[in-house]
């Protein structure tokens, strides 16, 4: 027994183990580099040699700790920083709420080559983290500070000073950010391509204009819920950023048709437009847009309450690539509009998702018109009270794979909730 054990240990001991003998360190490292975080940590416990190999910084270039967010505390980051040093290119700490400035400062000092850093939801982070990043991490390209609500303009000024290569920035829900921060950022980071600032209520036209003028490469802009901006901001974006292909202006309620007209004139590449809740938009604006932006693929028009069938007619004619269209709560839409959509080129080729929930005028006739949409995968019909089960069944007969979302319950009863636990499910028994 004991002898066997001795042999076994000898086989796996560092020098004797076959794999360690046969392969050079470089190849072993290469193999390790394909493993994920969990496997690496397991390998590190096998032997001393493997520990050295598994924890070699070169294996740790990209780390995503989202799965361990609850357990990630400051010392974890400091250890990782020490291990990885200059090797680390990408680190995601999304949702790791325990992380605070101290460990992030250590990180910035040790991992100077980091390019992609995700701190979304690390709520304890403050400006001093960004100042440290600015001081040490000049190669930083992508930074996500979403929901780090302690962040202020000081952070943006620091980033503008120290991280000129920044291309992606997310400062959603950092509601302390104001004009001056955004302006500093625009001047310091001209390479910015992606700018996401959902819910930054203090941002106004001037900030957006400054970004638009200084960052001509902007392609993705998300101003969801920045309710203070007006048509002027959209004008600056449209005129200065011709590469724009994603724009979200949802819940910017001051915007009018002239925004749509300006976008139509200047941004022919626009592929995604989200304008949910922009209730001043009318058919006129969408007519102009549909005539000019032929690349449009995804449109969210939820609660654009003024639009009618005319918008659908123009979209049907002008946007052959249309893939996802949301018309939730567009209460003036009727079967006629859907008929045009159904016969359009986009319908046959590209349309995959159509949301018509809370469109009270839609009837089963609309579903008939959509029979020719071969690619349609999902249709939302919640609260469309003129739609019947029969109409849905007919649509299903033509498009067998479609997911129809409505409040109709299936005729077959649901599987009972948990066999042996049935006695607990009293509500189902009583009802």
């Amino acid at each position, binding site marked *: 027994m004991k002898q066997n054990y001795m042999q076994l240990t000898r086989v796996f001991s560092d020098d004797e183990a076959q794999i360690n003998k046969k392969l050079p360190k470089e190849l072993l490292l290469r193999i390790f580099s394909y493993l994920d975080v969990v496997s690496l940590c397991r390998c590190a416990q096998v032997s001393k040699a493997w520990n050295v190999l598994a924890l070699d910084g070169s294996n740790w270039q990209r780390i995503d700790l989202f799965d361990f967010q609850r357990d990630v505390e400051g010392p974890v980051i400091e250890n990782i920083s020490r291990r990885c040093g200059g090797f680390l290119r990408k680190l995601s700490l999304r949702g790791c709420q325990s992380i605070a400035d101290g460990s992030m400062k250590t990180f910035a000092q040790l991992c100077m080559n980091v390019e992609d850093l995700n701190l979304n939801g690390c709520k304890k982070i403050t400006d001093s983290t960004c100042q440290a990043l600015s001081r040490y991490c000049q190669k930083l390209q992508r930074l996500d500070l979403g929901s780090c609500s302690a962040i202020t303009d000081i952070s943006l000024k620091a980033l503008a000073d120290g991280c000129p290569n920044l291309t992606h920035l997310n400062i959603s829900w950092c509601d302390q950010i104001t004009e001056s921060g955004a302006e500093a950022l625009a001047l310091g980071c001209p390479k910015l391509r992606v700018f996401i600032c959902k819910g930054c209520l203090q941002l106004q036209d001037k900030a957006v204009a400054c970004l638009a003028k200084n960052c001509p490469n902007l392609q993705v802009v998300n101003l969801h819920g920045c309710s203070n901006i007006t048509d002027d901001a959209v004008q600056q974006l449209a005129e200065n950023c011709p590469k724009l292909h994603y724009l979200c202006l949802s819940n910017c309620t001051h915007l009018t048709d002239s925004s749509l007209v300006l976008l139509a004139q200047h941004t022919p590449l626009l592929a995604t437009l989200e304008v949910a809740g922009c209730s001043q938009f009318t058919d006129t604006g969408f007519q102009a847009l549909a005539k000019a932006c032929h690349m449009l693929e995804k449109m969210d028009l939820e609660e654009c309450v003024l639009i009618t069938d005319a918008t659908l007619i123009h979209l049907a004619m002008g946007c052959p690539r249309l893939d996802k269209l949301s018309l939730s709560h567009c209460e003036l839409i009727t079967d006629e509009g859907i008929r045009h959509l159904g016969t359009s080129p986009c319908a046959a080729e590209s349309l995959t998702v159509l949301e018509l929930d809370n469109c009270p005028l839609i009837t089963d006739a609309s579903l008939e018109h959509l029979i020719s949409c071969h690619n349609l995968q999902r249709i939302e019909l919640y609260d469309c009270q003129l739609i019947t089960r029969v109409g849905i069944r007919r649509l299903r007969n033509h498009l067998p794979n479609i997911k*129809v979302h*409505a409040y109709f319950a*299936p005729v077959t009863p*649901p*599987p009972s*909730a948990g066999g042996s636990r049935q006695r*607990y499910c009293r509500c*189902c028994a009583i009802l």
Partner: protein
Amino acid sequence: MQEDPFPAAERILSDIESVFIKDPELKEFDILPITLNQNKSPVHHVENCLGLELWCVRHVYSYAYHRLFDMRQQKNRRADPEVQSRLLIGALLLNPDVQTFWNMRRELVQACRLDCHTELRFTSIVLSRKPKCSEAFSYRKWIVTKLVTGGEKGQSLLNRELNVAKTAANRYANNYHAWQHCIWSLVHLAPCDMYPEIHLEEWTATRIWVTMHISDHSGWQYRQYILQQLCGPLGSKIPHTHEENYLYRYIQPLLHSSNVTQKPSDSDSQLPSAKGDPDQPFQYPFAEDIKKCSNMRIVQCLNFVLSEIDLSTDLITRYPGHEALWYHRRFLLSFLKSFIDQNNCIIISGENSDCRKHKNTFSSTALNNYDLSAECVSFQSRASGGSSGEVTSSDIHVFEIIREMLYLVAQAMSKHEKCFVSSCVAGDENQQRFCSQYNTWLTQVLRLSVPT
């Protein structure tokens, strides 16, 4: 490809969740008896009340149940906490008796994904539909403990806990869990030695409640708990209600009726109430002496018990045939007996050890020490004015007076109970049965001896 049989479940769940987020004043949840299934949202939100149509309940619950248990079984693949929370809201509203779901919420709270105060609100809405759900109450206790250890003030939480529990008690008769929650809240958030006035408030407030819910065993039990606290070692700081002279309200009339004045008109079942003229001269021994200790705590305690016996007499005669009332009376009598016995013991031991040894040097510190060790009644006589320094000989005399008074009360009570029983014998069938059982109990268990 296995398709989701009811994709709307997800939407219904998110509708329910958004009502919770949008309406901080939400009060109630219930299921609406609507079986007609149209393409219409089954979630109704009217006047801070949330309703779900009946037809979708099976489907939504089944959906949430299966998804949650799938998540539970693959624990290593951590699920999105937001999705999990949404599913849990739906599942727990429809069926709050599943401990696993509550445990999943506990895990989310511990991971700081859910806010404790929102959770308290959520459980109160769960309780609005299932007021007897013990899992919901125990979850509340867990949250409250967490808040208190986190430094939140107990008293601010107490009112909400009492309100929630009492609402539940109103919705479901004999709601043991709700009243137990009240007791728990008092013990943990407002112990009697620190918040005597809250106990006194509860004592007066529940009096009204029990008179309207005479058959509620659990409600009576809560009252019994408060009585024990008021008369117990922690109740020594109960404020004196100055408007009312304890002696005159219940004790004197009791002594008066059953011991001395032996007019036939006084032997009726009712305890003579305060209508007796307080200036009437006393005829029983020690009458004048007892008058001196009218503001002492022991008198105050006796007054609590006697007033409750009076209430019990009143309710039993007014609502014949309710078992809960008779059981409450048994409690009161045995409580009174043990109270008297205990205090007699203390007085005798006090006299033997302290008084006899240091006859005239019986200091107030000795008296105070004796209070603490005796764990029953504080003899801090307010009548003797501050009781600083040496205690006068009249204060030593107080012991004897009290002992005599307790003896008199015990005698009077025995007699009173016999009268009461004899007055209740005539009545409906149940009342007769309860009454004779009570009588047997009095003689055999309590060994009440009727003075001749």
